[in-house]
C-alpha cells in the first residue's frame, strides 16, 4: 500500500489525511475496495469517477459518517476508525456536501458561527478519559458563561462574529450576512458551505462537487478561489468533481474510482490517457455530458 502512497506526491511533510486499504461493504455490496489516499498540506487532489463509483462513499468514510469494514483512516496521524464525525472534524478535517446541507433557517453569518464555535478551546486534543473530563468541564463552564452573560462570553461572541464575518468576506458573501441560508441563490449556497467548512479551521478540506450546477464562468472563478483558499489557509484540498475540465485544470493529482475500485491515480495528463479511465469514465458519462460540445 505504502508504495502506492509514495508515488502520488513528492512534497515533504507528514500526510494530514491518509486512507490505508479502506474497504466498505453494505450488505453484499462492496461500495469501496482497498481505497488508498494521502493528502498533505498544500495538496490539491481530485477524486473522480462515474456516477455510483463510490466517490461520496469515500468522503463519508473519511469523515466518519460510515465506518470502514477494512483498513484504516488516519487524520493528522491519528487513527480515527470508530470516531464520530465531529471528533474527526476537530482533528482538522472539514467537508462540504454534494446536496447542499446548510442550516437553512439560520442566517449566513450564523451558519459560519456554528462551525467556528464548535472548535478551539471547547475541544481539547486527545480522546482519553482525561481529555473527555476536561472537555466536559470546559463545556460546563462555557454554558454557565453563556447563561450568566459574562464579559468573557460577550467578548468571545464578538470574536466569533468577527471570525465569521471575515470568512464571509473571503467567500464574497458579506452582503448576505443576515440573509437566511435558504434564501440564498444556489451558487452562493455552495460558497457558504465552503465558508462554513472553513469556519471549523480545517487542515484538510473535502469538497464534494463544489461546482455542480454552476456555469462555466462561475466554475472558472471557483477554481481560482479554491487555489487561493489552499494557499491562504494552508490547506490540503480534496475535490470530488464531475466536471473533468475543472479537475484537470486545478488538481495536481487525480484518483479515479469505478465501482468502488481505484482504477488510476496520477497527474491529470497521465490519468487522461489511461485506457481504463477512458473506458470506465470517459467512455460513457464524459462523452455523454460533453456530447453537445464535441
Amino acid at each position, binding site marked *: 500500500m505504502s508504495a502506492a502512497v509514495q508515488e502520488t506526491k513528492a512534497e515533504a511533510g507528514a500526510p494530514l489525511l491518509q486512507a490505508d486499504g479502506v474497504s466498505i461493504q453494505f450488505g453484499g455490496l462492496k461500495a469501496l475496495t482497498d481505497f488508498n489516499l494521502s493528502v498533505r498540506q498544500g495538496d490539491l487532489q481530485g477524486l473522480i469517477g462515474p456516477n455510483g463509483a463510490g466517490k*461520496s462513499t469515500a468522503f463519508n468514510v473519511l469523515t466518519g459518517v460510515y465506518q470502514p469494514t477494512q483498513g484504516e483512516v488516519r487524520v493528522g496521524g491519528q487513527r480515527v476508525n470508530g470516531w464520530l464525525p465531529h471528533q474527526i472534524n476537530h482533528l482538522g478535517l472539514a467537508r462540504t*456536501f454534494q446536496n447542499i446541507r446548510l442550516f437553512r433557517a439560520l442566517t449566513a453569518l450564523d451558519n459560519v458561527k456554528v462551525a467556528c464555535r464548535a472548535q478551539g478551546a471547547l475541544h481539547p486534543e486527545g480522546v482519553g478519559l482525561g481529555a473527555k473530563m476536561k472537555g466536559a468541564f470546559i463545556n460546563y463552564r462555557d454554558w454557565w458563561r453563556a447563561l450568566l452573560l459574562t464579559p468573557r462570553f460577550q467578548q468571545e461572541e464578538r470574536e466569533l462574529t468577527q471570525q465569521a464575518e471575515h470568512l464571509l468576506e473571503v467567500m464574497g458573501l458579506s452582503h448576505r450576512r443576515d440573509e437566511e441560508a435558504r434564501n440564498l441563490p444556489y451558487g452562493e449556497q455552495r460558497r457558504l458551505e465552503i465558508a462554513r467548512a472553513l469556519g471549523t479551521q480545517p487542515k484538510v478540506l473535502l469538497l464534494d462537487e463544489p461546482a455542480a450546477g454552476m456555469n462555466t464562468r462561475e466554475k472558472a472563478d471557483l477554481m481560482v478561489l479554491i487555489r487561493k483558499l489552499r494557499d491562504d489557509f494552508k490547506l490540503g484540498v480534496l475535490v470530488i468533481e464531475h466536471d473533468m475540465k475543472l479537475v484537470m485544470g486545478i488538481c495536481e493529482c487525480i484518483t479515479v474510482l469505478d465501482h468502488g475500485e481505484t482504477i488510476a491515480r496520477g497527474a491529470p495528463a497521465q490519468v487522461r490517457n489511461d485506457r481504463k479511465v477512458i473506458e470506465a469514465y470517459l467512455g460513457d458519462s464524459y462523452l455523454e455530458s460533453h456530447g453537445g460540445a464535441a
Partner: protein
Amino acid sequence: MAQLLQHLINGLAAGTIYALVALGYTMVYGVLKLINFAHGDVMMVGVYMGYATAFALGRDMRSSLLGVAVVFAVAMLGCALLGFFIERFAYRPLREKPRLTALITAIGISFALSYGFQLDLGFLPGAAPRAFPEVIEPVEWLVIGDRDVVVWNWQVISFGIAVALMVGLQYLVFRTRFGRAMRAVSWDHRVAALMGIPTDRVIALTFMLSSALAAGAGLLYAIKDTSVSPLMGLYVGLKAFVAAVIGGIGHVPGAVVGGLVLGLVEEFVVGYAASTWRDAVAFGFLILVLLVKPGGLFGRVAAEKV
C-alpha cells in the same frame, strides 16, 4: 404447565387486539409519517356504533351470523366515514406543514371524542363503562383437564380474523395497484403525485381503511372484555402504539408481532412477577427493544443519504 399454557393463550388473545389496533397506526404512519393519536378514539367511536347497532337489532338478531355481520359492517363503515372526515378536515389542510402540527390536531380530535362521549346528553350512553352485548355467544372451544386450560371460541375467531386481516393487508400493500400507490406515497408523496398517483385519494383511502380496521379491532376487543367505555381508546390506543413501535412502525407484520409480543410480555409479568409493575415492564421492554434495535424489531432506520 397448564397455567403456563393458559397464560400463553390469554397473552395471545390480548396481543391480537393490540396487533389489530397497531396495524391502523402503522398504515397511517406508513403513508403520512403521522402518529394518529386519535386512532384509539376512532376505535372507541366504532365500538359505540356497534353497540348501538347491536341494540337496534335486538337480542335474537344480533347473535345470528347475519347480525354479527351487520354489527361489524355498520361499525366499520361508520368509522371509515369518520376517518374520511377527520382526514379531510383535520389532517389534509396541514399536510405540507410541519409534522407536529397534524399531531396536535390529532390530539385535539382525541380530546373532543373521548371527552365528548362522556357527556350525559341523552343520546350518548354517558361516562360509565357499559356492558357490550354478546354478539358472539361464548362457547368453550377447547378444554384441557379440570378447566385448567380453556380456549374460547371468540379467542379463536379473533385470532383468525387478525391473521386474515394481516395477510389481507400484506396482500393489499404488496400485490395490488392500490398497495403500490400506497407504497409510492409512503416513499415520497410529492414524487408520487408527480408520477400521476392521486395522492389525496390514496391517503384518504388509507385513513378509511385504518379507521375501519380500528372499528373491527375495537369490536373484537369489546367482545373479548365485554365492555365499552369512552376512555377505552386512550388505554388501548397507547398500548397499541407501543406495539406498533416495538414491531417497527410502518411495518405491517411488525405491528402484528409487536402486538403479540406486548400482549405476552404483559401477561407473563402479571402471571409470574408483580402485577403492579406491568406497565413499567411493558415500557421498559419497549425501551430495551429500541436500544438494541433502534428501528423496532422489524423496522429499519433508514440510513440517511449523505
